[in-house]
């Protein structure tokens, strides 16, 4: 283990040292160099994860996620619909023992997990999906969100069941713990190795989707307003603030963010609703485009398969169902029944994907930022033929911003602030997820934790400087690699969850588990 550790650290230290050395060059060329080095470095990993199923253009990883979510939905007999009402009751605190007041409530665990997932995936990710896959991608995104609820349920139940509770009263949980402990309990071999593998991918995911993608899109949003300037400047500012929080221990910044971000989320949904209400006569048409596009593609690259791949990919990236990250956040809850947190967690993909992502997609479609060929009714592709042509050639977060801006002129400014805060809160959440995986591998201790946190800050600068393409590829690849290990292990552990589910639902029916009168 020590050897892996030192190799990893040397590698990352190398990146950290070579980066400032390049600062002698002109600013723009630094960005270009970071970009080039980064793309070369991550290329093989990205191509492996997104390798198509032989004979098709369909990436195997997308199939993997969808099959996983479908299996869990069937295995637990549509638990996401059967226990939906019960999940709401749990979040409201109907089943919380008043004597546990002061402990982490179901609501708090859900809110914390949501603040890690609701963010750029919902704003920029959806724009990428709709920009490449057309409106039809929305349909597949919603479907992936609904199925993903079952994946989330499975992993979060296990996260609580197999968490570590330390004598000092703190807790650590997540896939690395349920994989190793769960496999041991069932007498299966290889638990420890799989847990280590998951942790490695989780660390990469923390640097990728949880960090570089955020920094990158936050920078894109800032330049949208201020005009172009080198990305590493934004990166350094972000890195300094994140450093102050996670290394400097200035908790107040994180606390303020945690309180502001939910309101930003509500405001975002509110603004989307305003746009939809103003254009209510177009909602029917927009859904028409979504359904038509889902099965025909309406001329997008790759046809309806292209729409499907984009929809599933961006949904998974946004709600992280099956990835395992949420299991880390949910495991701190106070409950005697691990399954209750599973029920609560299934609301996460619903809020994140089915509600918020769909709102973004509808706003983009209704604002008619995507150019339609009037003659055929199909969407026109850009010059490269890789995505749909947009009014101002925007993509990613800029496309969402333009879509909102066309209806509410001043909203891009608010969106910019929201994006920066979302990016920041996602980074803080992922720095914690990554740290948990890191300490699982290398043990807990001040020095090992500091090493991780420093590397995390270096990646913020790289992320802000690199261009969207390589960053988004690596972010996706790292996060999906977590899902490869996690879902594989969930197949073995799902019977543990079913036993919990049966026992709990029997006791719920018999009246043994009842609401507390408040």
């Amino acid at each position: 283990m020590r050897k892996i550790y030192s190799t990893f650290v040397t590698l990352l230290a190398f990146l950290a040292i070579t980066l400032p050395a390049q600062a002698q060059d002109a600013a723009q060329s630094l960005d270009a160099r970071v970009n080039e080095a980064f793309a070369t470095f991550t290329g093989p990993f990205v191509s492996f994860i997104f390798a198509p199923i032989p004979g098709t253009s369909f990436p195997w990883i997308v199939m993997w996620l969808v099959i996983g979510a479908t299996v869990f939905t069937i295995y637990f007999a549509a638990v996401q619909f059967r226990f939906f009402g019960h999940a709401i009751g749990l979040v409201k605190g109907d089943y919380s023992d008043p004597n546990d007041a002061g402990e982490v409530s179901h609501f708090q665990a859900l809110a914390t997990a949501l603040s890690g997932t609701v963010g750029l995936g919902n704003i920029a990710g959806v724009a990428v999906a709709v920009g490449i896959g057309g409106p039809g991608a929305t349909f597949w995104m919603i479907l992936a969100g609904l199925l993903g609820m079952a994946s989330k349920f499975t992993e979060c139940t296990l996260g609580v069941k197999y968490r570590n509770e330390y004598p000092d009263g703190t807790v650590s949980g997540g896939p690395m713990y349920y994989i190793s402990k769960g496999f041991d309990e069932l007498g299966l071999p290889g638990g420890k190795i799989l847990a280590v593998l998951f942790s490695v991918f989780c660390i990469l995911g923390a640097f990728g989707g949880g960090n570089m993608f955020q920094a990158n899109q936050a920078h894109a949003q800032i330049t949208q307003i201020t005009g172009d300037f080198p990305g590493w400047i934004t990166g350094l500012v972000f890195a300094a603030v994140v450093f102050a929080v996670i290394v400097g221990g200035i908790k107040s910044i994180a606390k303020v963010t945690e309180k502001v971000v939910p309101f930003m989320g509500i405001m975002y949904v509110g603004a989307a609703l305003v746009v939809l209400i103003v254009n209510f006569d177009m909602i029917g048409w927009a859904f028409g485009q979504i359904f038509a596009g889902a099965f025909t593609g309406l001329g997008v690259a790759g046809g309806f398969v292209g729409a499907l791949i984009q929809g599933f990919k961006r949904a998974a990236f946004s709600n992280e169902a099956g990835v395992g990250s949420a299991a880390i956040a949910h495991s701190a809850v106070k409950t005697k029944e691990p399954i209750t947190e599973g029920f609560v967690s299934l609301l996460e993909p619903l809020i994140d994907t089915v509600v918020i992502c769909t709102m973004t997609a509808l706003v983009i479609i209704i604002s008619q930022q995507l150019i339609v060929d009037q003659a055929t009714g199909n969407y026109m592709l850009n010059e490269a033929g890789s995505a749909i042509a947009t009014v101002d050639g925007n993509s990613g977060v800029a496309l969402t911003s333009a879509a909102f801006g066309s209806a509410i002129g001043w909203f891009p400014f608010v969106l910019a602030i929201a994006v920066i805060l979302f990016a920041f809160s996602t980074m803080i959440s992922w720095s914690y997820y990554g740290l948990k995986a890191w300490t699982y591998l290398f043990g807990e201790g001040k020095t090992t934790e500091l090493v991780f946190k420093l590397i995390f800050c270096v990646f913020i600068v790289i992320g802000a400087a690199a261009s969207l393409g390589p960053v988004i590829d690596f972010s996706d690849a790292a996060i999906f690699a977590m899902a490869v290990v996690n879902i594989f292990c969930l197949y073995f552990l799902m019977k543990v969850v079913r036993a919990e589910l049966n026992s709990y639902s029997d006791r719920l029916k018999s009246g043994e588990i009842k609401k507390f009168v408040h």
Partner: protein
Amino acid sequence: MKLVIGLDGQSSGDKALAFAKDLAAKTTDCELIIVYVIEWSPFSFQTAEENAERHKRREEEIAVASERVVNPAVETLTKAGLSARAIVRHGDVADTIDDIAHQEGASQIIVARSSAGGLTSRIFGSSTANLVMNARVPVTVVA
């Protein structure tokens, strides 16, 4: 007879305590329940790290409240020959004091007048005012 005394860790609490002491001395067989509520809501937003350490923090908060506020109060009352015990709980101050008084079957709640004044109480309201308005048990506010 049972009396619930709500303390908030401010010096004004001493007056409520003295008042309850006088009242208890006048009757025989009176139990005094000292309640300290740590302001907390299940619907607040926290970071993942705060959540992971929550159980530990909760224990610490209860220990501090017991040590600094309720235990000295119980000691004073017991020394005076009265029967007294303490409850420390997290929650909304007014609701929790009322719940405890209701569950314990107390005949009266005794609290000090609100220590927060001016703008703060205008914006956030005062726990004492909320208690007086919503309690299911008679409330005495000691000035």
